[in-house]
């Protein structure tokens, strides 16, 4: 069961991280545009389109990865005070009512939207370079399906927690610096306290 969870987590993370590297393309591509515009007075015809295609693909495909890390913002003032079983019960109910309908709609509507765009090989209207944007639109249903799979994995987490009373572990990953520092500090202190006790 845990292995299945980790497999889904890994899939989402792998795809999200791969698309994450687009930030380098976005940084370098946009910087290149500024350089050729001012230094060589020869602006590109494609930089603007490339920039939003990169950005759009980056965040859309990182959605499931973020969910697998519990990274989507939630108002958890009360939530964090509850025992794990309560948290899991509430989460599971809300996944059914307020997660899957939206994500399924995204898959369905995204599919129609992308299929139309692919049919006539749509290109961007913003520039004469004719940068194709149908691949970007195809990512919408793809992101929807990923979110669907990750959502099922999260629901499974809730069910496991309801059974055992503890949240199943998540895989280790890079944390925000403040979280990493606070954890390190906590570990150092409890280590020091254990040392004192001995």
């Amino acid at each position: 069961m845990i292995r299945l969870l980790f497999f889904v987590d890994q899939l989402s993370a792998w795809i999200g991280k791969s698309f994450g590297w687009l930030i380098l393309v976005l940084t370098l591509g946009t910087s290149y545009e500024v350089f050729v515009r001012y230094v060589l007075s020869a602006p590109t015809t494609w930089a603007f389109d490339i920039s939003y295609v990169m950005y759009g693909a980056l965040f859309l495909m990182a959605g499931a990865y973020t969910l697998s890390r519990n990274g989507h913002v939630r108002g958890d003032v009360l939530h964090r005070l509850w025992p794990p079983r309560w948290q899991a019960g509430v989460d599971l109910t809300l996944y059914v009512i307020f997660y899957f309908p939206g994500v399924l709609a995204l898959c369905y509507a995204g599919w129609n939207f992308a299929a139309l765009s692919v049919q006539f090989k749509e290109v961007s209207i913003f520039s004469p370079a004719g940068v194709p944007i149908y691949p970007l639109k195809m990512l919408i249903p793809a992101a929807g399906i990923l979110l669907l799979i990750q959502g099922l994995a999260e629901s499974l987490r809730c069910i496991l927690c309801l059974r055992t009373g503890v949240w199943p572990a998540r895989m280790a990953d890079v944390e925000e610096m403040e979280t990493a520092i606070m954890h390190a500090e906590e570990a150092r202190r409890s280590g020091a306290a254990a040392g004192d006790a001995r």
Partner: protein
Amino acid sequence: MSNPEIGIMMLGLFIFIVMLGFPIAFTLIAMGVIFGYYAYATPDQLDHIFDNRIFPLLVQKTFEVMSSDVLTAVPLFLFMGYVVERSNILDRLFNSIQLAARNMPGSLAVATLITCALFATATGIVGAVVTLMGLLAYPAMLRAGYDVRLASGVVCAGGCLGILIPPSILLIVYAATAGISAVKLYAAALFPGFMLAGFYVLYVMGRAMLNPALAPKLVQEGPPPSLRTVTMALLTSFFPLAVLILAVLGAILFGLATPSEAAAIGALGSLVLAACYRALNFERLREAVFLTARTTAMVCYLFIGSWTFSSVFSYLGGHSVVEEFFAGLDIGTIGFLILTQLIIFLLGWPLEWTEIIIIFVPIFLPLLKTFEVDPVFFGILVALNIQTSFNTPPMAMAAYYLKGVAPPQVRLTQIFSGSLPFVFMVFLAMVLVYVFPGIVLWLPDYLYTPR
């Protein structure tokens, strides 16, 4: 039930679900879809259940977020921030500013404030600044015999300045939400940002002069450092970062580059900076890339949800109910501003700035026209207001971060009470901005009004 009533029910239900702690972006998307399906249902809906206007609407809003040129700046600024955060610059920065400020009253606290402001402006990430400075400057202040409350307030308040002083991500997000120019908003935030930072510095210096026991003068060991040493220290740490920020900001304000182009240059510059400090390796780059992906997804999925939700909400007539409600209060412009800012202040207790700006501010935006408030002006008031949300319980993130790294004898209540004067200074700044709107509007008018 009539449609507007359904709309209000939708808003109420949404707030309830938020309080239950479910990921907000997906709650918004699903509620938009469910209520939208109802709102756009045709009389013979049951005969073709997959044919409803909510489906094209949802995907159209999704694509709008994906192709927004304003929001393209978000991952770039985040990436710049995560790289600067990992560039080992903070120690040098703090030490050099401390050397330069050593003869001022409360010098350590002043140096902390300036370091926080500069570093937070470059990174735009509140938590990292507070924890890093909590480990670096905070123990230094306590060792020097500074008052615990004063030292805590300085770190917490200083760390939050980064979301106000441009180029800040909060302002980009507000610009995208309100559909106004991010450039104008940056120009508008410049003076209020410096004003607030100035208040903080003056306050600390004033307290230190009136009661030197709060911030004892540092004991000088050996001969004072030569001017050359101080200049060299500043040149190798303060100036590179300041130049990076000013280059990004200048390019935006003088119209040389769009915010996203300037952000790209800033991100490239931060990579160069990190390389110069020998802090750029594959591991750190990976961390910065992955964190950028996650935080961008968090922000942008909120936008998809919010734009879908609010289309349905206004189609149902929810917006007009809100408008009628405010119009019926008969409170005038001042009353409207006070009421909305009070609501935003209260929302800052349980929520973070992303949710406030992306989800709740849009409820007030259509009212600005009715009450003749400039959306740029309103945005600056909101950005100032949100400074307080990090320092007021129960969700005082800055205080919790500091508590997490502070020596065990420091109590959370001491941190809260230390932040309180700084929260009051934010209110003072808001009042001044209201009384003298020129603080906000002069620069954008001067720069962008054709003459």
